[in-house]
C-alpha cells in the first residue's frame, strides 16, 4: 500500500504539479506572460461556460415540466460514459505502453500492480477533472431543483466521484487485452486503430439505441398507460429503465431518491463494487499487461526490416521532405493517429450513424426537406463554417513543433528557409482537412439526395462550400502554427502530452470559436444589405486577406522564433 501511495503521489506530482507551475511562474518571465494570456483566455471562456450552465438549467426545467427529470440524470450518466470512452482509450495506451516512467519503475523493487494501479488512478483523476466541468453541473442542477435531502446530496457526490471508475476499468481491461492480442500481428498499429474505431462507433451506436428505446412509447395500449403513469408519478422512472442496460445507474437512483438506509447501503455497495473492479484490473495488469508490455519492448528493439535492394532517392523538395516526416510520424504513433487522422474517419462515420438513426417518419422527412430547401444558402454557409473551424480544432497544426519534442534540434539547426518550414508544416494538416471536407460533403450530399433533395443543385452548393472552407481554413492553420511556434511544448514524457495536455490546442480551439462568432456576426450584418452571392464573395475576400496577413506574420517571425523556442 505504501508503494502504491508513494508512486501515486510521485506520478500525480509529475502530471499535475502546481509547485512546478508556481515556481516557473515566479522565475520565468516569458512563461509568466504566457500564463497571464492563458488565464485571460480562461476568463474569457467563463461567460460562455455560464451560458452553457444556464442552458443545462433551462433544459432541466423543461424536462421537469414534462416529468422527464430522471431522464436528465440518465443523459448525464451517458455523457460521463461517452467522455470516458472518448478520452481514456488512448490515454491508457500512452500512460501504460508509451510512457517513460514504466521503463524506470519496472526495474525497481515495487510490485508491478502497485505502480500500474497508481498510473490508472492518475488517469482517473484526469477523467474526474473533465467530469467536474461537464457532468457535475447536471447532478447539481438536478439536486437543487428536485430539492433532495442533505444525506442524498452527500451520497450523490460520492456516487459522482465513483462514476468514472467502473467504465474506466472496463476500457482499461479491453485496451490491455486488445494490445496483447494485436501484438502478434504485423500491422498491429493499424489493427489497433481499426479496432478502436469499431469499438467506439459500436459503443456510441449502442448508447444511442438505448436512449432511443428509453424514449419510445410502447405499442401495447396497456403498457402505454403504464408508461404514462410512471412518467407522472415516478420521479426516477428513466433511471430505473436505464439501469436495465447500465446497472450502475441503480446506485445513482438510490443515492438521489432512496431513504437514508437505502442510500447509504447502495453507496456502500457501489464503493465495494468499485474496489472489486479495481482489484480485477490489478490482476489483469499484473498478468496480461506485464507480458504484453515486455513483448512490445522486445519487438521495438528487435524490429528490423529486410534491406532494400532497390535504391531509393529523397523527395527533393525540402517542404515536401518535412511534410513526409510529419505525416509518417503522425501515422506511426497511434496516439497521434487517433487524435488527428482518425477523426477524418470517425466523424463522418458518426454522421452516417446519426443521420440514419434520426430518420423519423415520412412526414418528418418532408418537413425537414422543406426546411432545408427554404434555407439552403444558410445551411451550406453553416457547413462551410463548421468545416473551417474543424481545421483549427484538429491538433495537427497547433502541435507541429510540440510533437517533435526532444528532436526539435534537428529542424531548428538545419538551414531550412521559413517558407519551406511553413509549407512543410502546413501540408499534413491541409491534406487531412481536404480529405475530411470531401468525405463530409459527399456524405451530406448523398444523405440529402436520399431524403429527396435535388443532387445536382446540392453538388454545386457542395463545391462552393468546399472552396470557401478550403480558403477559410488557411488563415486558421497559419494561426495554429503561430501559436505552437510561440510556445511549443517540447519537454514531455509520453506522446499523449503534446496533443492531449497541450494548452496550444485549447488556445487554437478558442481562436476557432472567436473566428466562428466573428464570421457569424459578419453574416448577420451583411445579410441586411446584400444578396447571398455577394456575401459569399465577401467571405472569400476576407479569408484570402486573413490568410495573407497570417502567413506574413508567421513568415516574419519564423527564423527568430526558432532560436528562442527552447
Amino acid at each position, binding site marked *: 500500500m505504501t508503494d502504491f501511495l508513494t508512486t501515486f503521489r510521485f506520478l500525480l506530482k509529475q502530471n499535475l504539479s502546481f509547485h512546478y507551475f508556481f515556481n516557473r511562474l515566479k522565475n520565468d518571465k516569458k512563461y509568466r506572460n504566457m500564463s497571464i494570456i492563458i488565464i485571460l483566455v480562461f476568463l474569457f471562456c467563463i461567460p460562455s461556460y455560464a451560458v452553457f450552465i444556464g442552458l443545462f438549467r433551462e433544459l432541466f426545467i423543461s424536462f421537469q415540466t414534462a416529468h422527464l427529470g430522471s431522464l436528465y440524470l440518465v443523459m448525464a450518466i451517458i455523457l460521463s460514459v461517452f467522455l470516458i470512452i472518448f478520452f481514456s482509450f488512448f490515454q491508457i495506451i500512452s500512460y501504460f505502453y508509451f510512457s517513460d516512467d514504466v521503463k524506470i519503475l519496472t526495474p525497481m523493487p515495487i510490485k508491478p500492480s502497485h505502480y500500474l494501479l497508481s498510473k490508472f488512478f492518475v488517469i482517473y483523476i484526469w477523467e474526474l477533472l473533465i467530469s467536474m466541468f461537464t457532468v457535475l453541473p447536471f447532478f447539481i442542477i438536478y439536486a437543487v431543483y428536485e430539492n433532495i435531502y442533505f444525506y442524498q446530496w452527500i451520497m450523490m457526490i460520492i456516487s459522482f466521484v465513483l462514476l468514472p471508475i467502473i467504465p474506466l476499468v472496463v476500457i482499461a481491461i479491453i485496451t490491455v487485452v486488445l494490445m496483447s492480442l494485436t501484438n502478434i500481428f504485423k500491422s498491429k498499429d493499424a489493427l489497433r486503430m481499426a479496432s478502436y474505431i469499431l469499438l467506439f462507433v459500436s459503443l456510441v451506436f449502442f448508447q444511442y439505441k438505448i436512449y432511443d428505446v428509453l424514449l419510445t412509447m410502447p405499442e401495447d395500449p396497456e403498457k402505454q398507460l403504464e408508461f404514462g403513469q410512471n412518467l407522472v408519478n415516478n420521479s426516477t422512472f428513466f433511471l430505473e429503465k436505464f439501469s436495465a442496460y447500465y446497472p450502475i445507474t441503480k446506485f445513482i437512483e438510490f443515492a438521489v431518491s432512496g431513504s437514508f438506509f437505502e442510500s447509504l447501503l447502495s453507496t456502500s455497495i457501489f464503493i465495494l463494487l468499485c474496489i472489486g473492479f479495481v482489484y480485477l484490473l490489478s490482476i489483469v495488469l499484473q498478468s496480461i499487461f506485464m507480458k504484453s508490455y515486455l513483448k512490445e519492448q522486445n519487438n521495438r528493439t528487435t*524490429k528490423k526490416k529486410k534491406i532494400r535492394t532497390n535504391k531509393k532517392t*529523397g523527395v527533393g523538395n525540402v517542404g515536401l521532405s518535412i511534410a513526409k*516526416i510529419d505525416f509518417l*510520424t503522425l501515422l*506511426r504513433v497511434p496516439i497521434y493517429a487517433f487524435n488527428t487522422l482518425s477523426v477524418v474517419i470517425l466523424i463522418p462515420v458518426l454522421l452516417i450513424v446519426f443521420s440514419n438513426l434520426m430518420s423519423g417518419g415520412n412526414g418528418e422527412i418532408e418537413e425537414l426537406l422543406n426546411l432545408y430547401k427554404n434555407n439552403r444558402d444558410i445551411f451550406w454557409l453553416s457547413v462551410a463554417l463548421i468545416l473551417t473551424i474543424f481545421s483549427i480544432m484538429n491538433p495537427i497544426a497547433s502541435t507541429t513543433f510540440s510533437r517533435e519534442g526532444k528532436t526539435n534540434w534537428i529542424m*531548428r*539547426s538545419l538551414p531550412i*528557409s521559413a517558407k519551406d518550414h511553413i509549407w512543410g508544416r502546413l501540408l499534413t494538416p491541409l491534406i487531412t482537412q481536404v480529405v475530411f471536407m470531401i468525405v463530409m460533403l459527399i456524405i451530406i450530399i448523398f444523405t440529402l439526395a436520399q431524403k429527396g433533395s435535388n443532387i445536382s443543385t446540392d453538388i454545386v452548393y457542395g463545391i462552393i462550400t468546399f472552396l470557401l472552407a478550403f480558403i477559410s481554413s488557411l488563415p486558421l492553420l497559419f494561426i495554429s502554427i503561430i501559436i505552437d511556434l510561440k510556445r511549443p511544448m517540447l519537454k514531455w514524457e509520453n506522446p499523449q502530452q503534446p496533443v492531449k495536455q497541450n494548452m496550444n490546442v485549447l488556445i487554437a480551439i478558442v481562436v476557432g470559436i472567436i473566428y466562428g462568432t466573428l464570421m457569424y456576426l459578419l453574416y448577420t450584418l451583411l445579410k441586411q444589405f446584400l444578396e447571398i452571392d455577394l456575401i459569399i464573395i465577401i467571405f472569400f475576400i476576407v479569408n484570402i486577406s486573413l490568410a495573407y496577413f497570417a502567413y506574413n506574420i508567421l513568415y516574419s517571425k519564423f527564423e527568430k522564433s526558432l532560436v528562442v523556442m527552447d
Partner: protein
Amino acid sequence: MLKINNLSKSYGLKKAVNKISFEVNQGEIFGFLGPNGAGKTTTIKMIVGLLKPDEGKILINGFDNQINILDAKGQFCYVPDNPEVFEKITGYDYLQFICDVFKIPNKEREERINYYLEKLLLKNDINSYISGYSHGMKQKIVLIGSLIVNPKILIFDEPMVGLDPKAQHTVKELLAQHCSKGNSVFFSTHVLEVAEKVCDRVAIINNGEIIALGTLDEIRKSIGKDESLENIFLELTEK
C-alpha cells in the same frame, strides 16, 4: 571559419557564459573542454542557433548567425550531446531528409551514404526504424547525417559518448579526413585523451569563462609546466 566575440548568456542571475572570445581556423580541429556545467553546451547551442545570446557576435564562415541566419546554418552540421532523432522513420529516411535539406544530388548522396554507412558499420540497420536503435547507433546515424553534407565546419557536442572503441577510432579518422579537405571541426569533449591526440588547438572553459586557449604547447608554456592535458585541465579547473 568560426569567430566568437564577447559572447555572453545568463539564466536568471547565473552567468552561464561570460564574454568569451575565440576563433576556429580553417583546417583545424578545435577542442572545447570544461567540467560539467562550465558552459560548453550553452556556447555550442548559441553557435548553432538553438539559444539566443544576451550579447556578443558569432560569425560562421563570415556569416553572422543572428543576421544571416540561413546562410550561417548552411555552413555547419551539428551533432548534439544527446542524439534524439525522429523515431518513427528509418535511418535511411533520416539521411535522405538531410540530403534533401542540403540539396545533395541523388547520385552523389548514394555514394556518400554508402561510404559512411560502411565506415561506421551501420549498413545492416539502415532500413530499420530509429526507435529500435541503441544509443550508439543513434549517435552514428546523426554523425553520418552530418558527415555526408561535408560542411565547412562540423560542430559536435560530446561526439564520442555512446560509441564503441572501434567507432571512436573511425570517427577520429573521419574528423582528420574532413579537416584535410580544408574544413574545420569544433567539438566539446570530456575525454581528454581524445582531445590531446586529435585537437590542433583547445579552449578550456570554466564557470562560463575561457581560462586557457591555444595549442597544448602554448597552454603548457602559459602555465609554466610540462604536464599532460589531464593534469593541466585538473589544475586549471580546480582553481
